[in-house]
């Protein structure tokens, strides 16, 4: 028996995958190079800076676990963006969905009291439900009124941001001076995978499971087949009896649930409560994570790790090389710019390869 259509790779496909990988690496290196120029222009030594970044991200076992932990939320928001994108839905609202997921987890974690076997799953599920609920509004607006998902999800980010701020300053302000919710019960906290001082919790495993689940959904189920068909050719999908709007609706809900899960894991895994501005743009960073991975769930593991590494290494870069943490945002922006120039890079790579053939 032959292998399934989904996993058979012929040579051409492999070449194409290799080329895509090469382009991503080139874009990455170009971004680091330009970033180096910027660092140098500000009077610092780029080699030292990148050295510190590397040390901070991978230098020690503990640092590595921090990197893995930082990768978790962007892995999930990256997945969220990718799964919607596969169905031609541009979910820019992962940030808001993440915030709402986090809020739900913080509330269920702090105000519901149950044994861990029930409390923890309930908390996690609540975060997914809240993320999904937050994406439901843009989804229903799209389905009923054909409202642009890009616009509505952006708007819902703002609503979520201020709503969460209001909730942690007002009705659900926990004990103490700082604007934060009450600490969640120990029964709602994700267990650590490794003993202290390592900082890795079960959230990492959940994120990997979400990656596998998304892959299975997209590539192994008839629903995923429909969603991909809609993403690739909505017209042909429609003519062949696939409900395009229903699939887009569903894709956005799944996307919201994944983003909500990211928020839930942040709360149950590391923060244990919501503090003001706790999300370091995890939702928005899902976009480059998905972009770099070409929406491939497994590739997202690696692109999320890259972003995670930069996040965890930037502290070291700031303290030992004296370069602002914000430099990481600059480099991240550059990566996106160079990735968007994919076709330009592809052109040069192919032309060079072509030139060699004729030489």
């Amino acid at each position, binding site marked *: *028996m*032959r*292998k*399934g*259509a*989904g996993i*058979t790779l*012929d*040579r*051409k496909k492999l070449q194409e995958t290799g080329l895509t990988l090469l382009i991503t690496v080139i874009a990455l290196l170009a971004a680091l190079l330009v970033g180096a120029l910027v660092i140098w222009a500000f009077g610092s030594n780029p080699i030292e800076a990148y050295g510190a970044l590397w040390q901070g991200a991978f230098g020690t076992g503990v640092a590595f676990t921090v990197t893995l932990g930082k990768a978790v939320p962007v892995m999930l928001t990256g997945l969220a963006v990718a799964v919607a994108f596969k169905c031609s839905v541009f979910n820019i609202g992962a940030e808001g969905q993440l915030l709402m997921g986090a809020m739900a987890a913080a509330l269920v974690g702090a105000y519901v009291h149950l044994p861990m076997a029930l409390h923890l799953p309930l908390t996690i599920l609540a975060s997914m439900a809240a993320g999904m609920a937050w994406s439901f509004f843009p989804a229903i607006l799209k389905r009923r009124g054909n409202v642009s998902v890009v616009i509505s999800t952006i708007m819902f980010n703002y609503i979520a941001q201020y709503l969460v701020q209001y909730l942690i300053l007002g009705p659900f302000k926990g004990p103490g001076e700082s604007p934060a919710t009450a600490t969640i019960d120990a029964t709602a906290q994700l267990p650590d995978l490794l003993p202290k001082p390592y900082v890795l919790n079960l959230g990492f495993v959940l994120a990997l499971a979400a990656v596998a689940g998304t892959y299975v959904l997209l590539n*192994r*189920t*008839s*629903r995923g*087949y*429909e969603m*991909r*068909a809609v993403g*690739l*050719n909505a*017209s*042909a*999908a*429609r*003519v*062949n*009896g*696939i*409900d395009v709007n229903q699939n887009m609706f569903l894709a956005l809900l799944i996307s919201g649930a994944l983003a909500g899960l990211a928020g839930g894991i942040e709360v149950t895994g590391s923060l244990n409560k919501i503090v003001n501005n706790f999300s370091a743009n995890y939702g928005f960073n899902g976009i480059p994570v998905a972009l770099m991975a070409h929406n491939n769930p497994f590739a997202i593991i690696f692109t999320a790790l890259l972003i995670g590494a930069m996040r965890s290494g930037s502290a070291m870069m700031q303290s030992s090389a004296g370069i602002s943490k914000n430099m990481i945002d600059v480099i991240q922006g550059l990566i996106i710019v160079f990735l968007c120039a994919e076709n330009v890079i592809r052109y040069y790579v192919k032309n060079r390869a072509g030139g060699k053939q*004729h030489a």
Partner: protein
Amino acid sequence: MNQPIIQLNNITKRFPGIVANDHISFEVERGSIHTLAGENGAGKSTLMNILYGLYQPDEGEILIDGRPVRFNSSKDSIACKIGMVHQHFMLIPKLTVAENIIVGQEPGSALKVDRRGAEERIRTLSETYGLRIDPARRVSELTVTEQQRVEILKILYREAEILIFDEPTAVLTPQEIDEFCRILLDLRANGKTILFISHKMAEVMKISDRITVIRLGRVVGTVEKDKTTVPELTRMMVGRDVSLERRDRRAFTGQSSLLELKNLRYSSAGVRKLNDISLTLRSGEILGVAGVDGNGQEELVQAVCGLIRPDGGQVLLKGRDITGESVRARKEAGLGLVPEDRHRDGLVMEFSVAQNLILGLHNHREFAKSGVWLDFPRIQENAGALREGFDIRCADVDAAAGTLSGGNQQKIIIAREASRDPDVFIAVQPTRGLDIGAMEFVQKTLLEQRDRGKGVLLFSLELDEILSLSDRIAVIFKGEIVDIVDAAGVKRQELGLMMLGSRAAAEEGREAHA
């Protein structure tokens, strides 16, 4: 003067798995119309892309005016005064004709484009060759034929002496093809050399001076037009005798009605597209719908398939009212559709052949366990069987559908729809752009459906196709059915008149047969 303008010597091009061009040699005389004929996938387009510099040959040489040349890109071939009109136009809709033509080599200084000068030159060219194009108009306002003429102007503007046309008539209606042939003859009269790629025998015989036939990447032969016949050319192309004629019409005797349309009405943006359409498709018949393009055929198909909601009227499938049902429900109830635009509506190009063969069937228990989990072994099995049964030529059923030739793409759709075993088979322009071999196959499939007691609703702009396949013919004009006639007795001319809305002609025709 006897020097051929183009000489191809032993051109060979290999792609992984196939030899697209296998030692191809022929010569083209200056100032002639030379046709390159062959089935889809025979290697015509590859050869032309080599001549145009888009591909480089693995072996062999090209001589232009007796001098060997080497084209590394289309720039090189343009420098040798070769121009190409591609099957799919490469125009920017938002720009004017003149802007489209000068784009990339704008005349004038770096700061100011000499628009006026360019327009003047284009106007002169347009007049010289009878192209009738106003350079100031926007491309988005032009019809398909006009766009094609802009493409021709574009290469004339670049002073091409050799014009390559890659299946230029695939997108044209019969009347437009006549007009196009006239333009080619005008171009020849002005001394241009034309390389014309086609597999439509009528036009090949009409305008060619010489014809080179290739099959499976090899030259079968080059013949003078005056010394050959359509059957001979067809035999050269296909490798066997082919007949698209069919006169074994069966008399049907009141079989049950499969599809019934009652007073369908539909308007869009204030324009009435369907006006009180009533039709009955019976089992065991092919009902052809003839009409000039844009007279409501598209809307009729959409209304039957559930892609638009009619303003009034009913669609009955085997007696059941399906007017309000979804596309999926209709297809499950026994409707099969071969859509007009296979790229847009028929296939997901990035999906594999196997995946396309289950589009719309993907959640059936047959291919998805419990309707959820795709059953890859079954999907592959299905693909293997249909590939064989419908002669879908592809390297592998896991190859993307987009990598197949047009004829084989169409076979994927036909195979998929036939595998649903529908009671009503709706085929819209099913042979458009196909070569003879594929065309014959598609028509054979439709006839088989009919012979198995199914109903076929055939939409075609090709009158010949309607005449040779249909048992009855409905003529549609401005959203109305002018008349429904028995195909056995009707004459081409009568149909032609009815297609222009003449009910009188219809009446006369019927009286004559009564």
